[in-house]
């Protein structure tokens, strides 16, 4: 960046110093903007442009191909009706209740487990350098790999149950992945296994950033270890909670591939998440309007959760 600016200066005749200086400052002002412009334009078009396009499509009667005549909110009316069809559950009802269960448990367990592991690893133990990557590496796998591996492990005829039967524990029974009421919890297990190590790494970095003097002061004041963590460490980790929450929340919302690889949709579609619903309706059932409407609702939901949270967290920080 600076070399470009310098060559520009050399090209300018010396006696004409003042315009040169303006060109230079003008360039210095503008260069970051020029460099950022392509990615900015790409984001505007491919993210925000397509968000608007999706919203537009959700009000049309697009089927296989996009159609541009606005026909009203029939797609939303159908989704709204499906929202309350719980017995037998409509696909949309299944998707959103699963999202609730999965999102809540996934984020909560990942945060709790990640924090717990990080605190244990932070006790200046031997072999931390070996242990840390072991927990972290699942994050390097794609969801497809995680899904397939856990599918085999949880399959009663192949994995855990079969192995324990062979070892002699024949009464052992674990068929959640084949059970319509429990299949979503297997998605939670696989998801937590993959992401908790990453959350641990985030918390570990946070713990290392805490000033040792504060801890010592608290210990001198006679705080127990539990009090130390409860009253001092965890409140100090608040920014890490924010980052981890945002990372986990968006991972939860886009968990499409995990469901497909692990359960192929579950018995009778009982493992669907809204992202599966969206893909199914847009690309397999040629109901692009309904697919778009469900995508818009997903976006609205995450906005409704994330924006107030971000707002409150960031406002308090600036205070």
């Amino acid at each position: 960046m600076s070399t470009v600016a310098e060559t520009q200066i050399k090209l300018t005749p010396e006696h004409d110093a003042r315009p040169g200086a303006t060109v230079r400052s003008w360039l210095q002002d503008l260069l970051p903007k020029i460099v950022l412009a392509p990615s900015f334009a790409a984001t505007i078009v491919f993210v925000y442009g397509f968000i608007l396009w999706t919203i537009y499509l959700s009000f049309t009667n697009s089927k296989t191909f996009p159609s541009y005549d606005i026909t009203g909110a029939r797609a939303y009316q159908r989704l709204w009706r499906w929202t309350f069809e719980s017995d037998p559950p409509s696909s949309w009802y299944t998707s959103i209740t699963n999202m609730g269960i999965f999102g809540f448990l996934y984020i909560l367990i990942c945060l709790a487990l990640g924090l717990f592991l990080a605190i244990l690893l932070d006790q200046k133990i031997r072999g931390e350098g070996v242990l840390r990557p072991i927990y972290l590496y699942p994050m390097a796998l794609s969801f497809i790999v995680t899904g397939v591996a856990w599918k085999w492990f949880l399959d009663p005829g192949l994995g855990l149950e079969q192995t324990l039967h062979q070892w002699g524990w024949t009464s052992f029974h674990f068929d959640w992945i084949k059970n319509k009421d429990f299949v979503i919890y297997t998605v939670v297990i696989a998801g937590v296994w993959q992401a908790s190590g990453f959350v641990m790494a985030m918390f570990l970095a946070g713990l290392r950033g805490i000033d040792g003097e504060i801890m010592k002061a608290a210990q001198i004041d006679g705080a127990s270890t539990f009090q130390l963590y409860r009253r001092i460490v965890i409140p100090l980790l608040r920014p890490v909670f924010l980052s981890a929450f945002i990372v986990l929340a968006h991972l939860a919302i886009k968990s499409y591939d995990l469901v497909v690889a692990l359960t192929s949709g579950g018995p009778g579609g009982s493992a669907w998440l809204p992202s599966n619903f969206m893909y199914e309706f847009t690309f397999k059932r040629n109901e692009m309007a309904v697919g778009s409407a469900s995508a818009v609702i997903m976006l609205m939901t995450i906005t409704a959760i994330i924006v107030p949270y971000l707002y409150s967290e960031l406002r308090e920080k600036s205070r």
Partner: protein
Amino acid sequence: MLRKLLIGTALATSFAFSAHAADVKEVQMLHWWTSGGEAAALNVLKQDLAKEGYAWKDVPVAGGGGDAAMTALKAMVAAGNYPTASQMLGYTVLDYAAAGVMGDLTETAKKEGWDKSVPAALQKFSVYNGKWVAAPVNVHSVNWLWINKAVMDKIGGTEPKTFDDFVALLDKAKAAGVIPLALGGQNWQEATMFDSVVLSTGGPEFYKKAMNDLDEESLKSDTMKKSFDNLAKLVKYVDPNFSGRDWNLATAMVIKGDALVQVMGDWAKGEFHAANKTPGTDFLCYRFPGTDGSVIYNSDMFGMFNVPEDRKAAQIALATATLSKSFQSAFNVVKGSVPARTDVPDTDFDACGKKGIADLKKANEGGTLFGSLAQGYGAPPAVANAYKDVVSKFVHGQIKTSDEAVTELVKAIDDAK
């Protein structure tokens, strides 16, 4: 994310094509026949075209059901880069034809006599507004039983002629400690089996009314309820691990003798062949009990796009080669299906193939050739998938009674129309 991917695919393919735009002695073919047997079958066509001097440009998009391929095709068509032809199923052809992007093969069809040789039921999908837009490659039929002969002999079973016979046979297998029915608990497999159950329970007239015409009276009739009850009877004979299993693993259970029978389309025969099994001695193929004389079909088609003039000659050569008797025979012997024209000699086919060809001919003449709703040949994808939802929810217990199933079916189909 997905959108970006789509645009990316579109751009990538458009580069790939523009580089070859001048080359007219070439066909570009989008398909998802990437697995061993299927690829080998397609190779026959490649060689036929090579003999006539046409190069073959493969655009394979893997993924058994063709979802990925259809997504890629959508992007290509949206970008205005039509392939010469694409593998397509049922209503997809008509959707693209309605969008006005398909070519016109009517002259070739007349010259080659396709009108007479291709079954009328198939022409519903390959002809749009009187114009030929696709060349059917094969006819699969869905109402088959695939039985392990060794197990059948062991339990002393005979060919079941009625649904009750079938249940009795399954009971025998159960008593002998074999898994009676190999089923993969994925919605399309369950619905594919249910297609046969409906035909068996209600007969050809009823099947047509309910599953192709979507007549509401038939859909909520007692016959339909009885069909669901019969499905419930069959589901009692599957093993507890069936849910989510792939179809070919279910076929493998029959091949290995772990299970007695699978209800599946004739693509299952490919698995038996791959395991070096012979019909008659190692395995048996019967029509689903009570459906003899009728055929529930689905068919692979090569949709022909509206390509520029300089590429039309290659397209016509491709279409002609696809429906030539020699290719139809050679291809379908490998693929396990039967030819899409009824005047192909059956000399090269095995016993099951010969029966399939004879059945297709008979069904075509007798008007008992019906599209499979589960396979997307009975109604558009929105309806077909709504149907699969209901059947699958019934099998897995979200829908508890046949009464409820029928109500849900009418509602779901109505919603999706």
